[in-house]
């Protein structure tokens, strides 16, 4: 069970989002939201009662090991061996013929890394940024492509941890098609063709990449013009989250730069993640990155790099991600705060069962969009909304005597799933948003402001289709 303080449950998220808009700096904003949340639930010793319990959780330890040690180390090795630069030059020579193809490569990598969420954002952003920078692709465009292909692809190609997680919140007494774990996972897979927001987000991102999108919002248009005409990749007043640059300044003299230093560790990450998913049922991301880092170090040693240079490379990478790791830990803490103050539970409570059935998918989408935007987490939103909203949709469908109740619930399920993905994607306090900005070198708020208009159009289209479908076929 959970508790909430009515509208005041949203106070921590509101404080964090307002501060984010005003100061354009996530650490201050997240810290403000955490303090507000801690005071609301009566935890005044923020260090001992809030930060320590969150940071000592398995999730926080994973963040530190994965992002600070393994990913930071790998990025540092790529910088030290000149591998990223070599990759950028290879892609530029063989595939990239300008900003359009650079963006298509980013989009394709986003599709390939279908594990979704933070891992996808990190891999695509760090991989593509050097060649996109070379081709004058603005950081706003690149961070949009990275963010817009990370979580949406995870619900369209759900061969990942998502279905197993979501099914645990999807039981509805009386709905035979949701009775067992296997039924609920099958229900998740049945929903794929109706994940309209994800489909539109992926399609519009491709159209943006090939520059065939009729409209992409004033600010993104301005960013595209600015970068193509002046070569300025960021707005004049931008303050990028991460200042990590790939260049060959750090490569030891005499070390021969090869593209293998980049591709082999990358293949190790992908190969290991996919093979462990197939054989063990869930991708072992930590192992995959750990093995990739070891491979990278071993390759550098075998090709003559000394231990001192390797450690220098690792510490270069750590420095580049230390701020991002801190932001991620704070984003996790405010997610825990939002759950503790019950913001999501309050919003679902508020709606009740007064709604006409054909309005329910749209309202559930709006509700989960708002919860995920306010809390910065799609998985947290599933946890608070699915156990309340799915039974609500069952009862509303029963009350209206719907012929195709399973279909109606399937559409409601999609609207919840996609609403949460939208809110998470657009929220300035979401870990994937922060990572997309961080890995592409974009100003966080510039990224947020440029992606909201396009994502909103995709969601508008999706809500319209869900409403039409339940009106005609439920």
């Amino acid at each position, binding site marked *: *069970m*959970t*508790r*909430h*303080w*009515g509208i*005041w449950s949203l*106070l*921590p998220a*509101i*404080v964090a989002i*307002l*501060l984010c808009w*005003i*100061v354009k700096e996530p650490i*201050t904003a997240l810290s*403000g939201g955490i*303090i*507000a*949340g801690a*005071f*609301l*639930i*009566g935890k005044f010793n923020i260090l001992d009662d809030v930060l320590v319990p969150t940071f000592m959780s398995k999730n926080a330890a994973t963040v530190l090991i994965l992002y600070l040690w393994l990913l930071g180390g790998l990025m540092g090795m790529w910088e030290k061996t000149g591998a990223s630069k070599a990759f950028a030059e290879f892609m530029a020579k063989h595939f990239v013929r300008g900003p359009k193809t650079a963006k298509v490569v980013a989009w394709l990598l986003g599709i390939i890394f279908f594990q979704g969420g933070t891992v996808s954002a990190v891999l695509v952003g760090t991989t593509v940024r050097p060649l996109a920078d070379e081709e004058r692709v603005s950081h706003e465009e690149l961070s949009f492509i990275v963010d817009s292909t990370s979580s949406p692809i995870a619900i369209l190609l759900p061969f990942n941890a998502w279905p197993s997680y979501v099914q*645990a*919140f*999807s*039981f509805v*007494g009386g709905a035979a098609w949701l*009775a*067992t*774990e296997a039924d609920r996972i099958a229900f998740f897979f049945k929903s794929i063709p109706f994940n309209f927001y994800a489909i539109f987000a992926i399609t519009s991102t491709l159209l943006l990449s090939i520059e065939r999108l009729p409209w992409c919002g004033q600010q993104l248009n301005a960013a595209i013009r600015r970068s193509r005409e002046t070569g300025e990749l960021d707005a004049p007043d931008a303050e990028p989250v991460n200042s990590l640059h790939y260049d060959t300044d750090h490569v030891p003299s005499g070390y021969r730069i090869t593209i293998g230093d980049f591709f082999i560790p990358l293949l190790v990450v992908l190969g290991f993640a996919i093979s462990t998913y197939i054989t063990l*049922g869930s991708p072992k991301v930590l192992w995959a990155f750990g093995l990739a880092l070891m491979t990278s170090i071993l390759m550098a040693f075998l090709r003559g790099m000394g231990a001192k240079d390797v450690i220098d490379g690792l510490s270069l990478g750590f420095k580049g991600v230390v701020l991002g790791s801190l932001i991620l830990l704070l984003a996790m803490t405010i997610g825990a705060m939002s759950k503790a103050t*019950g913001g999501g*539970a*309050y919003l679902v*409570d508020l709606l009740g069962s007064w709604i006409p059935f054909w309005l329910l998918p749209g309202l559930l989408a709006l509700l989960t969009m708002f919860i995920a935007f306010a809390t910065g987490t799609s998985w947290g939103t599933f*946890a*608070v909304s699915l*156990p*309340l909203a799915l039974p609500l949709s069952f009862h509303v469908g029963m009350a209206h005597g719907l012929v195709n109740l399973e279909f109606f619930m399937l559409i409601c399920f999609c609207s919840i799933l996609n609403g949460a993905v939208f809110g998470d994607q657009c929220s300035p306090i979401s870990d994937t948003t922060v990572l997309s900005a961080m890995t592409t070198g974009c100003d966080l708020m510039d990224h947020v402001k440029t992606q909201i208009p396009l994502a909103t159009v995709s969601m508008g289209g999706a809500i319209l289709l869900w409403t039409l479908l339940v009106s005609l076929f439920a």
Partner: protein
Amino acid sequence: MKNLFRTITRPASLVLIIGVLLSLYIGKTTPPTWTIERMSVDAFKTETGQWAYTYNKAPVIIENLVPIDTAYLTPQNLEAVNAAKTTPAITEEFVIQPTAIFNA
């Protein structure tokens, strides 16, 4: 003093101060409303006759399982708790239902 006033009256400082003070006031004066959050698991009986569910491919024994008819965390009980502005005696309970088990 002038600098302090200027710092405090900045929009960001005002948002932070008002937000934190408001949180403090609400937390001290307003009792929370309790609602049910359900999570379902497929349960099975182990060789020793205990109920369990599978998590990370390993069985987890469910302690203190109660039938749905005698559950404490029901909408009716929570309504009473909320009306009395008190805190429920327990906040988590494993409940068995013919086709599934809830963790409320």
